């Protein structure tokens, strides 16, 4: 007999059991009801959806997963499926916040009475078109110029290049890659006949010796450095040789460190080749079948090459480089005797007067010893910007170049491009345009009246910058950037607000010839527009709307990949659909079923290599790669009693370029790069203490920094970063540049340092 409660509010046992059962059932369903945290761990940052993309910063091009919450980016993490295996560096992680930083450019501005004032897009673009048109009519097409960036998407650089070269009819198209990778490009072109590295990142998993020269990989390409370290962790016998004037964080992990004086690379590499010859490390098959030798315009024989190398003994080179002959011999031995040697380099090699020579000598070391074209055996340049390779070098958006390795100076190349772009013969000017330093010099002289600057900050990054600021002041300067103000907008007559990163869609090509896609995920702030939209609207107003017929990122990409099919850079098979699906593809990739190419010039792997031997250097008419006879030159800015120290510039892990993006990022803004590294030995002589304000004075200008006493630098050398706008190191640097690549020598000039007296 069940107990019947007197009070109707009292539960019976049966009711109680039912209630408990129902509660348990609800608990089980709780994950469906949005109470997932009761059932499973939840991320600290809630996200609605994840989208694949690529990091905004360096040329490594790490895959990222971007988490959206509502219409904002909430979180960014590394993409497990991409080459970076889920890793991101501190800058990559900061992409979570970069779109929402203070200092975004929100609306167009026009300078009126010396002040930049808000304007409408129509007003701004009409003014730009009118001023460009006036200059072209009065002074010819070469009185206008475009200065672009290795950070614009490929579609944007391609469109700008086409508009200026095939529309306006001037080759005054250059950009910041000239300051960054020009020597790497000219090194590859002179050696292999084609630009871009022969190897890929995967080679790092197979190399048994890393020859890292002129690269602080740990700080500047941290995710690639982790891959190098992984190789060493898996195979501890792997050797790491570091050539760097400074004892950087990277050097701490090296087996052998060669702290050469800046600008003495040519001596070092020639001396290493000397050891290869002496110790019989030369691959005779390579020399006989795959290499040619050249000295300037003249072809040389292998014996003549040996004669040239004879004077670069390790002993002589050691004196020039400021190291020991034994270290040179050991480095050469490790390089040549390993089963697979991979060289990595970047700005240290490129930003010097002998940048091209240094680049092609590193490639020569690989070719002469046969350390080439096998897994782990390759020369490989690291890149500073996400799209210097794909966007600027491959599209030929440089003053001397045309798309896919063609040259302005070559009539056949001009004709090919005129046909492909469907413009009348003769439209492309036969006169190469101004390279970067010459361009800003032309502004100084008044030869260039109008210049469109996109996505870069030459007001800070040019060498000997003070000398070129007056030219920027004089010129009608149009600056399109995602940030305002910058050092360049100070001189702008019109500022155009640009979309940043995933506020626009586009394709970039990273350091390993990998094209990958950035999706558009959020809207740009204020009235900002994508650089492609800006270029298209400008083209319309300049009367070249018919030429710029592809107006969306997809249409421009399709036009461009089809044009690439008429060259050895063929990536016609990299369709938009594949880019959307895959984590990028390595060109050459001629068909939609081609998996991409890891190692170039190797028949069977590279679809462009049609030969049957070990290699087919199809970029050269004779199918042979060129080894150059390069000489060590005397330094251009000599150190004297008045300027006794060598000034070197570089980067740190936490900031990128001129800090317009990383400077305001909440996770990075507490890290200040405004210091001068000076050895305690020099500091003692100059009566400088740690933290003292110091003046660095060169023959061109002065910069004030705080002294940081450290043995990272060697005595006789000081170092500062190029990041900060508060202290422009480029007021001191030298605008001398490589004769072939025209890349300036940021890595070496003579200075005096003194304590700042109050």
């Amino acid at each position: 007999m069940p107990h019947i409660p007197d009070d109707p509010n009292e539960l019976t046992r049966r009711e109680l059991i039912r209630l408990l059962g129902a509660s348990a059932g609800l608990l089980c369903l709780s994950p469906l009801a949005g109470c997932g945290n009761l059932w499973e761990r939840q991320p600290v940052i809630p996200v609605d959806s994840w989208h694949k993309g690529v990091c905004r910063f360096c040329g490594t091009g790490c895959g990222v997963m971007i988490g959206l919450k509502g219409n904002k980016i909430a979180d960014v993490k590394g993409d497990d499926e991409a080459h970076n295996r889920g890793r991101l560096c501190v800058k990559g992680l900061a992409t979570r916040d970069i779109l929402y930083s203070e200092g975004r450019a929100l609306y167009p501005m026009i300078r009126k009475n010396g002040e930049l004032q808000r304007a409408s897009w129509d007003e701004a673009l009409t003014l730009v078109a009118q001023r460009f048109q006036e200059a072209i009519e009065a002074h010819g097409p070469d009185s206008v110029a475009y200065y672009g960036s290795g950070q614009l998407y490929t579609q944007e650089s391609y469109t700008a290049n086409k508009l200026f070269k095939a529309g306006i009819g001037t080759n005054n198209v250059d950009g910041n890659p000239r300051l960054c990778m020009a020597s790497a490009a000219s090194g590859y072109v002179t050696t292999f006949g084609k630009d871009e590295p022969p190897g890929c990142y995967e080679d790092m998993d197979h190399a048994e010796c890393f020859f890292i020269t002129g690269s602080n990989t740990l700080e500047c390409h941290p995710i690639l450095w982790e891959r190098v370290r992984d190789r060493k962790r898996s195979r501890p016998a792997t050797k790491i040789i570091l050539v760097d004037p400074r004892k950087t964080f990277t050097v701490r992990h090296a087996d052998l460190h060669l702290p050469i004086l800046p600008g003495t690379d040519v001596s070092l590499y020639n001396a290493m080749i000397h050891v290869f010859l002496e110790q019989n490390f030369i691959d005779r098959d390579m020399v006989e079948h795959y290499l040619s030798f050249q000295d300037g315009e003249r072809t040389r024989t292998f014996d003549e090459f040996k004669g040239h190398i004879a004077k670069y003994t390790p002993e002589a080179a050691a004196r020039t480089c400021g190291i020991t002959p034994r270290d040179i011999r050991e480095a050469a031995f490790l390089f040549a005797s390993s089963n697979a040697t991979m060289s990595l380099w970047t700005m240290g090699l490129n930003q010097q007067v002998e940048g091209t020579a240094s680049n092609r000598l590193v490639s020569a070391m690989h070719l002469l010893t046969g350390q080439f074209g096998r897994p782990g055996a390759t020369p490989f340049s690291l890149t500073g910007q996400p799209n210097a390779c794909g966007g600027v070098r491959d599209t030929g958006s440089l003053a001397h170049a045309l798309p896919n390795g063609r040259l302005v100076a070559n009539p056949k190349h001009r004709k090919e491009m005129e046909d492909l772009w469907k413009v009348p013969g003769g439209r492309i000017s036969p006169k190469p345009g101004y390279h970067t330093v010459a361009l800003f010099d032309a502004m100084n002289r008044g030869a260039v009246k109008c210049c469109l600057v996109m996505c870069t900050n030459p007001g800070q990054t040019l060498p000997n910058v003070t000398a070129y600021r007056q030219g920027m002041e004089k010129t009608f300067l149009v600056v399109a950037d995602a940030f305002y103000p910058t050092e360049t907008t100070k001189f702008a007559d019109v500022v155009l607000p640009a979309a940043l990163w995933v506020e626009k869609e586009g394709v970039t090509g990273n350091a390993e010839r990998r094209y990958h896609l950035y999706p558009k995920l959020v809207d740009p702030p204020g009235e900002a527009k994508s650089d492609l939209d800006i270029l298209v609207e400008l083209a319309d107003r300049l009367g070249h709307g018919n030429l710029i017929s592809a107006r969306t990122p997809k249409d421009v990409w399709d036009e461009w990949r089809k044009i690439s099919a008429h060259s050895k850079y063929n990536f016609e098979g990299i369709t938009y659909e594949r880019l959307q699906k895959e984590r990028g593809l390595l060109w050459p990739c001629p068909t939609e079923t081609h998996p991409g190419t890891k190692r170039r010039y190797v028949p069977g792997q590279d679809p462009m290599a049609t030969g049957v031997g070990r290699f087919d250097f199809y970029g050269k008419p004779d199918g042979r790669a060129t080894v150059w006879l390069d000489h060590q030159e005397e330094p251009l800015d000599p150190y004297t009693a008045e300027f006794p120290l060598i000034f070197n510039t570089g980067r740190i892990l936490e900031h990128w370029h001129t800090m317009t993006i990383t400077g305001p990022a909440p996770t990075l803004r507490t890290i200040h790069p405004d210091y001068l590294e000076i050895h305690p030995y020099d500091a003692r002589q100059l009566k400088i203490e740690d933290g003292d304000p110091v003046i660095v004075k060169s023959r061109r200008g002065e910069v004030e920094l705080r002294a940081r006493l450290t043995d990272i630098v060697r005595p006789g050398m000081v170092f500062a970063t190029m990041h900060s706008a508060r202290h422009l190191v480029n007021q001191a640097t030298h605008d001398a540049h490589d004769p072939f690549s025209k890349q300036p020598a940021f890595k070496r000039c003579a200075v005096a340092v003194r304590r700042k007296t109050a």
Partner: protein
Amino acid sequence: MMYPHRRLLPRLLAIAAPVGLPHATAWAAGVHDAVSSVDVFRSIGIVAAAAGILLLVLVQYVFRKRLVHGVYHRLLLVGVFLLPLAATWSTTTTVMEGTKSVQACMSCHVMHPFVIDMTNASSPTLAARHYRNNWIAKDQCYACHVTYGVTGTMAGKRDGFRHWLHYVTNTYPDPIQYVGSYANSNCLSCHQGTGKWERVKSHQALVGELSTDRIACISCHGPPHPLPKERTMAASK
């Protein structure tokens, strides 16, 4: 009220037991390298179970007539309730402590690729490097996944239960994926404050983000284990 302490002692014990047992457990869990915590708990369990049976037999069949009513009841309470409770507690703890061992993880085939990688002398993963360099002397899985031990969190128990449910019902994704945010405290408890850690400026800048798990240590220093794709590839070889 001739012997007030006779009443006080059981009460004190009753209060101390729920507080004391977990503490004793926590202490025993890290007591000594030579004697594993599993052994300690197993012994306690066996002793408690044996003592309970012995007590009941003695009370019921040997001493029953000689015991006053109240004492008989209390001893029964000890034999029927308290000692079995201790035995249950110990066995549960034994299981939980036992699962801290790498062998225990290895007993589930889902974990095979993880343990195989960790013990692979040439693997570059974080787990493998911690293992082969002896940075963690024992219970290497548990050292970085501290939620599931007897002193771990409720969330850890919930996860364990969920994993078990998915496992027995065969409803887990293969390869498995980590869900949610990993607690950086597992890394920071050893690394934060070391000279090597402090030297890196990024660490200083990210202290807030790291302590709230908004940025994972393994974002830069990972991957801790083979990635899902790599595990599938290893399994198919």
